[in-house]
């Protein structure tokens, strides 16, 4: 399988504190990968670095073989690397329709409404007034409108009703195909592990496990499963 995104020797410092101590990762193209790690493991730092919001102090990020370490967030997004941040990746002050249009290149917001019909009833509402589940649907729905090649989802199911979470996972896992890669970043391993083909575990700023989801359960380093 070709590699969509690879990271070598990634280090990130916040002042005197190093949050990532040389992380190496490879995300195979067209697969669903789970990246699990507890609070403080460096999970969000890693994600923000991949998305271009945080500059690494060392290491390289390669996107289909191209070095994108110095690219700003908006350039990465236009290249097809989409991060949906933890809780509410929506513009609260814009209407649902505007949120979708911002991403729809040709102006067609149909695919998002087809995946989440409830959004169709909310088009003129400000996104900030939606429920948590609807906001997450909107955030994922937007990703359906872009030529996204790699989707980074931070805590997709956090605080959501199980039924809503299941629907969201269903949509994002069907997204993964030859052309598109999905990375589920989770604190709890349950749902994400069932859907993933590859698992990485991050702990205290280093990768402590890489491999198959079935192996993960028996791995001694997988201490933080819940």
């Amino acid at each position, binding site marked *: 399988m070709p590699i969509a995104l690879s990271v070598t020797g990634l280090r990130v410092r916040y002042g005197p504190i190093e949050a990532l101590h040389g992380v190496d990762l490879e995300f195979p193209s067209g697969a669903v990968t789970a990246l699990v790690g507890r609070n403080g493991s460096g999970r969000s730092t890693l994600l923000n670095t991949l998305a271009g919001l945080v500059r690494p102090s060392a290491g390289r990020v390669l996107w289909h073989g191209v070095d994108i370490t110095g690219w*700003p967030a908006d350039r990465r997004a236009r290249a097809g690397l989409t991060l949906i*941040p933890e809780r509410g990746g929506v513009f609260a002050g814009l209407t649902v329709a505007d949120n979708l249009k*911002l991403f729809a290149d040709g102006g067609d917001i149909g695919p998002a409404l087809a995946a989440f019909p409830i959004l169709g009833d909310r088009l003129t509402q400000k996104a900030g007034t939606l429920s948590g589940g609807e906001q997450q649907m909107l955030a994922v729905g937007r990703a359906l409108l872009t030529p996204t090649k790699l989707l980074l989802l931070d805590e997709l199911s956090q605080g959501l009703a199980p039924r809503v979470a299941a629907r969201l996972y269903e949509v994002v896992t069907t997204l993964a195909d030859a052309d598109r890669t999905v990375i589920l970043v989770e604190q709890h391993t349950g749902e994400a592990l069932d859907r993933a083909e590859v698992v990485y575990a991050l702990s205290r700023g280093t990768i402590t496990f890489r491999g198959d989801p079935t192996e993960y359960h028996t791995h001694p380093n997988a201490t933080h499963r819940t």
Partner: protein
Amino acid sequence: MLTVELALAGLGVGAIAALAAVGMITSYRATGVFNLSFGALAMIVAYLVWQQVRVWGWPLWAAVLLDVGVVAPALGLVLERFVFRGLHREGAGPARMLVASLGVFVLLVGVATLTWGTQARLDPPSIVPTGSVALPGDTSVARGTLVELGVVIAVAALVAGVTRYTRFGVRLRAVVDRRALAELAGVPADRVAAAGWAFGSMLAGLTGVLLAPHLRLDPYGLTLLVLETIGVAVVARLASLPVAILAALAIGVGQSELSRLELDSWGLIQALQANLFVVVMLVALLVLPRMIEVGGPDATRAATRIGTGHGESAPAGWWVPFVAVAAAPLALGAEHLRIAQQVPALAIVFVSLVMLTGYAGQISLGQAGFAGLGALFAGQLMSRHVPGLVALFLAALLVVPVGLLTGWPAIRRRGLTLALTTFAVAAVVSRFVFAQPRFTSDAVLDHPWPFEDERAFYAMELACLGLVLLVIRRLHVSRLGRMLVAVRDHERGAAAAGVDVSSAKVFVFAIGAGVAALGGALLGMGGRAFDAAAFDPVLGLVWFAAVVVFGVDSAAGAVLAAGLVVALDAATTAGMSTIVIGALAVLLSRMPGGVPATALRLAAGRPAAPAEPIPVRLTPLGRTLRARVRP
């Protein structure tokens, strides 16, 4: 009875106000910054056109095209790149944004004063036709008014069209709403924001060119006129352009119709007529508790939080040099001593802002109003033969209820809305009290017995300052102080922890007003007269900027700021301090925590974050708890 002629005459004023308000609202929504310098930008462009046409003899159309189409947008780009981009990236709240825009305001006024002087130019060129159009029923309306109305409506329609129906409009709103998320969505946020600033500045330029012929062109006139029309923008809740246009026209007509009423002996009607825009601003802010502010929930939550340097415990005896410096003027001659007397008085006013904004997170742009009231009350009491010392403290007490009244709106308001409300209170007090000879002519202010001597008075001021600092310090480290900080950092969290948020806010406003009044009264007594100009609301804006620039939660910084303001004005020309404060305010995004904190950091050569955790001295209870957590 309303008359048609007066109504038509009022339309002229209304059209001007509508233009300014539409420009301000549009620029606010396009940039996310309520730009106090909008009027100053307008003034600069008007001056440029005047210079090119009247001095260099350029054709009018060329000058207007160049200045409105190129120079104004370029100015906007410069502002975005060097002043506001850093603040946006940090997610700075409205307080720092207001201070930065105030810095731009002050700098531009300073530049205009240095370049063109303060004398008014009476011949700004006009781009609208003169003459009037006859209407049925023997009335007529000025041609210029019609053109201006047309321009306003066209601008409003254009703005509405672009924001609603174009991809750029959606992107611009997304950047203003949540900048980082917009970047994740592939929007080049810096470039889009720059375009917003360029457009907002272009509107300011257009406003300036259209308004200048109606006024004499001087560095302040146009700038302040635009500040007055904030009321119109507030009626439109900073959002609706049609409401803004209608409100502006209504106020213009109302002002015109008021001129028919009989003059009353109180002068209230005249004052109302002359200051209708300011009154509307205050009333609208009190009636409409919430503006439709831009920025996501993060932005409003960060509203009252002001980034400050890391607090560290000061070395023992750190206050010794302060006392030495403060006591030094006692050795000066009487003339210099009189100037030095302003320092402790102003410092007391500034310290009231430290308490209000730094500790409690409440923005107040209206401290000049409280200070002025303090001076006025003291003067009135002294004219009634109340002993000076009694008058001083009684005046401060009397202003406390006024502070209560201002604190009451603060219960439901925060951020930008609160800032504007306090500014409106100061403006109304200034226009309806300080500017009315009825209230001020018989005020008598003098050094109080037994401190008639210049030296004795200065020493008394120092004692007052010391007392205020002591009280503030006690307050800050007390349970109440912790409650105020809790309210500042997280209002709901504080409420959940059992803090009575409403009372805390009202209380801090009341105390802040009293302290500011004490400072104001001392300022008046030092000058031996009540000077309305010393308590102008615009000066209140500069004071706020000075306090934020010198570290909003640092009482020592406030004293330093007062010293600098007085010393600069005395050593150079009056107004120099304003320009320096403005320049520092513009650089605010590069100076987290204010000037002293930044200077200390640079002097120590340390990175912004503390390299090691600060050692904590535990109480016995703390030790027990820690032993349980980490055996």
